[in-house]
């Protein structure tokens, strides 16, 4: 009762602050800016914030807050466009949306998928805010109950989703996840700083690969290349099927699924240190496992969109709890938000929730309101934007190459970004071709860092507790929460493995010849072996134990696969090779010739800088590959260059320089 007595007046105060015309206006501006920035993969909170900061000085704090909250709230909303329409995971929040959203777009149901996604986001955001309003007052003990073993278990629960997403051959999924985990360890180790699979001579590798680049390389590049080879629209039929109203109906008939996944989102978001990167996978896994008919997942099941999208905006709300109570951001965008708060003269921390409850509620409900406005706008727009999927893809592709190259370059502002994008893109293409689970790889990569960190530290503490007494040790590692999550993990693995054969199988397996699949397996094994021995040569135990363990498990998986390949006939699904038939095999354009176009853009960038390279690339591509008239070529090229310059100019970003720029000083944007 006392709780309600403190909460209600503060809530009233907060709502009266939010619903003033000026605040609503600023919130709307923030939302519009956030939507425009969020649409581009790789540009997130920081880019958006640098867009609004110049206006923030001289603004009163509540308006500044509205502007900033509006912007941050909708970045995870608008990245759904890229996930659904193009198969590009815009950020960690929308990775799982790709799995079913993109196949829906290919069926011509993009509008349906988008509107279902946005209404789920909207609902998740609102539910999150309602739960938080009261929960934030009592959250502290619960948040503190999540120690290192508990966080490690949640990370493992996230990893266990590999079982659901492993694809036709479970073993391949496991090795793919292992490979992802190993790629995640490249660079300086978090604990002791030893180098893994990198040297100081190649500075780029020392920092490891960024998630944006790996996401683009694993999902976007293979999809774009595959589409481009077909030379038709994203929508297979070329038209649009079920529209956005249908998406709203879908959501309504899956209302309880949406509730469940929103709650998952809030709960996981509340725990500091997890970074929210597991949320959408856990939600996706839960969606699949609680559904009766699983045959359509991965091929365009609307529930596969509703689940993760309900969770990811709810997570943003949940992420406010650690951010505000402990001053420890629950996700990347929350880290930016903290910086912005400091700029307005506020400090997040325990005192904020205790003494400035009205301000706290202003933040919570501004976030919810921004969600409603943002998602509402997106729903209205989704019918129009979905038409993008009916345009001849060859005309869309050069723009996409431009945007992903620009997005990738934002991660380190170095040419290495483009090189690693290409390299990981090639890995992605092969994983797709030989039917290795790409989601499994990505889950491994995303969770690698925290899995290593949590297990290292939990292990040290457990050791110390066990030295005190056996009881203390057991109490620490086998707390009720750990046991509950462990049960969930085991269940999810068992159910997942039993059913994964039916999930994510895209069409009939095509095979032809043993050689190519075996060569690819040998390459993977070779890399894993190299990484394993490289890790073995490190002297610090804390820096080598994780890659050694994961390496050993993955190598065992490789060995088992190899044995199976030796013993099986050519028609075994283990030899799946999509180049040997089906849609890819019969595509009018070759795989390598198509990829070479992208390589051509990167090579030109390395020589002449990004803008000159783009100009040449657009002219050549549109004239030769797309074979459109000179007039169309010129119009599209000009539009593209003008657009990218505007984007770079507004965000204050430079473009990748090439060899030419190191000899000659050129004016912006040619620099």
């Amino acid at each position: 009762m006392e709780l309600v007595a403190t909460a209600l007046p503060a809530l009233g105060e907060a709502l009266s602050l939010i619903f003033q015309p000026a605040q609503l206006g600023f919130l709307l501006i923030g939302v519009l800016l956030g939507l425009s920035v969020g649409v581009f993969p790789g540009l997130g909170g920081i880019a958006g914030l640098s867009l609004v900061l110049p206006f923030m000085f001289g603004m009163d704090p509540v308006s500044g807050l509205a502007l900033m909250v509006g912007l941050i709230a909708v970045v995870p909303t608008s990245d759904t466009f890229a996930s659904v329409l193009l198969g590009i995971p815009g950020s960690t929040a929308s990775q799982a949306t790709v799995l079913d959203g993109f196949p829906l777009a290919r069926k011509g149901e993009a509008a349906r998928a988008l509107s279902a996604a946005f209404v789920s986001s909207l609902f998740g955001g609102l539910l999150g805010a309602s739960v938080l309003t009261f929960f934030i007052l009592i959250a502290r003990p619960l948040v503190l109950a999540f120690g290192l073993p508990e966080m490690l278990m949640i990370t493992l629960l996230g990893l266990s989703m590999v079982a659901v997403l492993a694809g036709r051959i479970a073993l391949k999924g496991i090795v793919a996840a292992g490979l992802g985990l190993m790629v995640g360890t490249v660079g300086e180790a978090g604990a002791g700083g030893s180098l893994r699979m990198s040297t100081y001579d190649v500075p780029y590798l020392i920092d490891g690969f960024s998630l944006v680049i790996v996401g683009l390389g694993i999902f976007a590049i293979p999809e774009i290349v595959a589409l481009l080879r077909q030379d038709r629209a994203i929508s297979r039929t070329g038209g649009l099927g079920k529209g956005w109203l249908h998406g709203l109906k879908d959501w309504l008939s899956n209302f309880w699924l949406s509730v469940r996944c929103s709650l998952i989102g809030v709960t996981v978001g509340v725990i500091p240190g997890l970074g929210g990167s597991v949320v959408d996978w856990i939600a996706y896994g839960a969606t699949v496992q609680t559904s009766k008919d699983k045959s359509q997942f991965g091929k365009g099941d609307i529930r596969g969109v509703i689940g993760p999208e309900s969770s990811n905006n709810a997570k943003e709300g949940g992420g406010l709890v650690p951010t505000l109570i402990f001053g420890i951001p629950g996700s990347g965008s929350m880290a930016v938000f903290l910086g912005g708060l400091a700029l307005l003269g506020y400090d997040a921390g325990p005192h904020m929730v205790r003494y400035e409850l009205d301000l706290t509620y202003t933040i919570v409900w501004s976030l919810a309101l921004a969600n409603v406005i943002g998602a509402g706008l997106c729903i209205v727009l989704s019918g129009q934007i979905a038409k993008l999927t009916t345009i001849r893809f060859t005309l869309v592709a050069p723009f996409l190459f431009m945007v992903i190259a620009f997005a990738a370059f934002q991660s380190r502002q170095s040419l290495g970004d483009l090189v690693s994008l290409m390299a990981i893109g090639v890995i992605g293409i092969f994983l797709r071709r030989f039917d290795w689970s790409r989601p499994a790889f990505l889950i491994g990569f995303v969770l690698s860092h925290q899995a290593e960190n949590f297990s290292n530290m939990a292990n040290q503490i457990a050791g110390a507790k066990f030295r005190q007494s056996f009881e203390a040790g057991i109490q620490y590692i086998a707390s009720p929460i750990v046991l509950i999550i462990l049960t969930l993990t085991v269940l999810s693995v068992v159910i997942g493995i039993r059913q994964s054969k039916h999930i994510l199988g895209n069409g009939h397996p095509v095979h032809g010849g043993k050689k190519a699949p075996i060569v690819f397996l040998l390459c993977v094994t070779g890399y894993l072996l190299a990484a394993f021995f490289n890790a073995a040569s490190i002297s610090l135990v804390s820096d080598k134990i994780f890659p050694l363990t994961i390496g050993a498990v993955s190598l065992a998986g490789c060995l088992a696969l190899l044995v199976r390949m030796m013993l099986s006939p050519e028609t075994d699904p283990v030899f799946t090779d999509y180049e040997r038939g089906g849609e890819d095999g019969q595509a009018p354009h070759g795989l390598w010739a198509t990829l070479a176009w992208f390589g051509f853009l990167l090579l030109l960038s390395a020589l002449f800088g990004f803008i000159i390279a783009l100009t040449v690339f657009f002219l050549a591509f549109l004239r030769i590959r797309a074979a459109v008239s000179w007039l169309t070529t010129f119009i599209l090229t000009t539009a593209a260059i003008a657009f990218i310059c505007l984007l770079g100019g507004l965000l204050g970003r430079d473009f990748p320089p090439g060899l030419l720029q190191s000899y000659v000083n050129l004016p912006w944007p040619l620099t």
Partner: protein
Amino acid sequence: MSFTNALGRGLAALLAGVSLAGISTSSQAEADFSGKTVEFVIPFAESGGSARWANFFAPLLSEALPGKPTVVVRYRPGAGSTKGANWFQRQTTDDGTVIFGSSGSTQFPYLLNDPRVKYEYNDWQVVLASGVGGVAYLPPDIARKFDGDANDLKDIEFIWGSQGATRLDLVANLAWKMLGMNVQPVFGVEGRGAGRLMFERGEANIDYQTSPAYLKSVVPMVEAGRAVPMMTWGGLDEDGNIVRDPTFPDIPTFKEVCEATEGCETSGTAWEAWKAFFIAGFPAQKMVFLPQTASEDVVAAYEKAFKDIIARPDFKEISSVTLGVYPQMTGTAADKAKKLATNVPAEAKTYVVDWLETDYGVSLK
């Protein structure tokens, strides 16, 4: 209503900042940051003392630099801050759009010739040096056994989250060892904020924070009865003596606790080594650097900007709440502080290297 008060305060501070920046830009014509985004990179996570320090200066810097660039704080944690410092060493911008905030945790591995250090302080151009203190604290149940000396703490098994043996935490580890306490460090936490969270969760039962983080995050815990301050590392007076920390005059220093504790000496090699590393780690703990490649006028613009910030009439008031009462140095004073922070006597180094090897198995070769 506290919120409305805060609004007024914030607005006043913003207005003050804007008008001041208006004056300062007119005299500086050389470097211009209009429309640029300055990345203020710190090699730690979002929740420690360095984050708080950087976030305090970022908006002020944004107002004080010519052309009022956007200043964003970026976090590059890892390997107890050497990862971020190695990254900064590789930066070659000359226009001042990347600045780096180092801390004692960055200085110590450098001083100890840690093989993973690929950065060189002599390459970097210092534009600000901030003094900082540190406070150790205990959970209430253990604090009951602490009465100004550590004699009754010797049978307790302590666990604490540490960034690494060769980081700033070295000062704490050595202090606890000298007091005869049995403290087991858990290495690999990303920033002291994560260590504090371990303390709050009960996984760790001792911790320390640098002053900015202590003021913000531990003081509320102390007020709520969840933590009790144990000792500060102290402050340094003009003659180089360790005295009470000016920000926490009521909390005893490690020196006082050591004197009161059996078996702890405030003379001899161990003490001299501790003092040397304390001096390298705290009175000039946090510094702002530009890369070697930054041009002269950019360096001058930054120096002037920081001077203007420190000269603000309200600086003392706003900084004491966030950073504590410590000297903020620019120009030659900052250069001197940098020298102090990046040099320790050879004997102290030898002692520490041996101790790290025997106690933690850390070999620095």
